[in-house]
């Protein structure tokens, strides 16, 4: 998934750098004071641990192997902000010491593996954990495996999308055609992500048994808060924010892609000489024509789907018990 220099359109690479620097600045502002004291060697240890864990190849089958990304693992161990910082260090070391990934593509690589992967992994883990809490240890494992799987799959999807946008923006001079990039990246990484899930669950189970103090404990401060403050500080709320941030980071690429022409269905209709007829029933919301409109529509959509899924899972759980 490490994107080399020269593969992405300069505009896409620049957008990656801008998003990466904004997120890094926010993370440094959040963690600045915390990291300067005892957390400095801790983050370095975990970054080194993730780097070394990436050297452990797991079997996929047919003689092929894959290796860990570690974004979800890092976020579960220290929280998303420190995980973003630590994963950034891993990506920098890979680029500077091993030439793995590039300099112009560093923003995109960091965006995919150091920002999107930990945020998705941590978000999915924390959203699913309360729903599987009745299953105790197995439930924790299911939530962790789901987070780890989603972290790799969404990061790969982001990489495939960036390749597609590069291809569209440059009319084939940069990037990879979507007919090749999307199926190959998603199919390959759906399998790799299963390995990531199994290895992440194994590592966390081992660390929990042997050295539980290494895993970030629940926020004690939340218990003392009340009302809205308590809701905002809850893991569920912050997990939802993490997922929405991932969505917000993906949107500029969508707009860059959309600015290049009609989508597939619109283009097909235009080629066939068919116009769009008046709808029988009009939806109350649109996807939005600008960035903030689309972001708002996305947040509303996410909340509706999350609430519906949560209600469904709770109903199923109640029925079973």
């Amino acid at each position, binding site marked *: 998934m490490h994107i080399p220099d020269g593969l992405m359109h300069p505009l896409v690479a620049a957008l990656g750098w801008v998003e990466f620097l904004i997120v890094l600045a926010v993370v440094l502002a959040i963690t600045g004071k915390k990291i300067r004291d005892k957390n400095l060697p801790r983050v370095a240890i975990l970054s080194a641990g993730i780097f*070394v864990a990436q050297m452990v190849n797991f079997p996929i089958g047919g003689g092929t192997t*894959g290796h860990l990304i570690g974004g979800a693992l890092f976020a579960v161990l220290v929280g998303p902000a420190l995980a973003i910082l630590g994963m950034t260090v891993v990506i920098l070391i890979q*680029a500077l*010491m091993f030439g793995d990934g590039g300099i112009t593509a560093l923003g995109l690589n960091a965006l995919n593996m150091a920002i999107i992967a930990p945020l998705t992994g941590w978000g999915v883990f924390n959203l699913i954990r309360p729903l599987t809490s009745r299953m105790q240890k197995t439930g924790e494992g299911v939530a962790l495996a789901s987070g780890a799987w989603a972290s790799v799959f969404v990061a790969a999807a982001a990489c495939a999308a960036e390749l597609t946008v590069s291809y569209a923006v440059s009319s084939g*001079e940069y990037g990879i055609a979507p007919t090749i990039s999307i199926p190959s990246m998603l199919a390959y990484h759906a399998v790799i992500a299963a390995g990531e899930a199994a290895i992440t669950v*194994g590592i966390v189970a081992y660390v929990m048994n042997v050295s539980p103090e290494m895993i970030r404990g629940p926020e004690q401060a939340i218990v003392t808060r009340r009302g809205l403050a308590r809701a905002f500080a809850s893991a569920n709320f912050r997990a939802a924010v993490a997922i929405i941030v991932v969505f917000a980071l993906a949107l500029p690429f969508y707009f860059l892609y959309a600015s290049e022409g009609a989508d597939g269905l619109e283009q097909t209709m235009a080629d066939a000489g068919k116009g769009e007829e008046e709808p029988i029933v009009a939806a109350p919301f649109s996807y939005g024509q600008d960035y903030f409109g689309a972001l708002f529509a996305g947040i509303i959509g996410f909340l509706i789907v999350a609430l519906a899924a949560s209600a469904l899972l709770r109903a199923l759980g109640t029925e079973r018990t």
Partner: protein
Amino acid sequence: MIGGVGFAHVHSSKGWSDSSRHSWFWRLDSRAKILGVFAFVLISAILTQRTLVFASLAISVLLAITSMVSPAGVVRSYLAALPFILLASVSVFLVAGTERGINMLARTSACVIPLLVLARGTETFDLFAGLRRLRVPALITTLLMLTHRYILLMSEELSRMSVARKARGFAGGRSLFDRYGLKVLSYTAGMVFVRTSGKADRAYEALRARGFDRDMTAWRGTRLSLPDIVFVFCFFFASVALVVFQFGVVL
């Protein structure tokens, strides 16, 4: 992962050979190397005209050959990055035509080769010190330096465990359905985390006892010499020439 370089060579601190240490490139100031190579890569990445893409590839190959930085190591690392580059080039070749496919292969190679020369032709701590002296935030360079220190500790631990696993007859597992294999591998990684965290704390305390104060600027204080300035000038000149021809300012 697609395009992932095998990190096996981390065990030997990037496997620097003696020839690397005696090359003129190795002796350059790390700031000059970083500035020259980064500027060249930045410009090479935006080239689309075939002649210019090949000109930048020729400069990259010339740098790799004349720098005498571990040729085997550079080739090995390039081959490890090749699958992703080839996937992109072949897809462009199939969908957008031969010329664009070849352009893609040449452009990505022109960008990857100088970075590999920089990575293999610079001592790691010199590289980080160079970044710090180029005003990269101290928090980032310190984390880079500490992480690299701990990677060396953990790699040793990991290779010891790998030997122990092999001695017990473990061959790496068969597939994703091999629960025992995955359990052994994940517990190994977990064990590396736990075992080294104690050692890492001691290593950090030892660093602080020897005067380290969360910033590495004072350690390496070199001045830019004539060869450094010539190197930066050559690469800046080449980059400017390429960009001028690309955007037709002269033509």
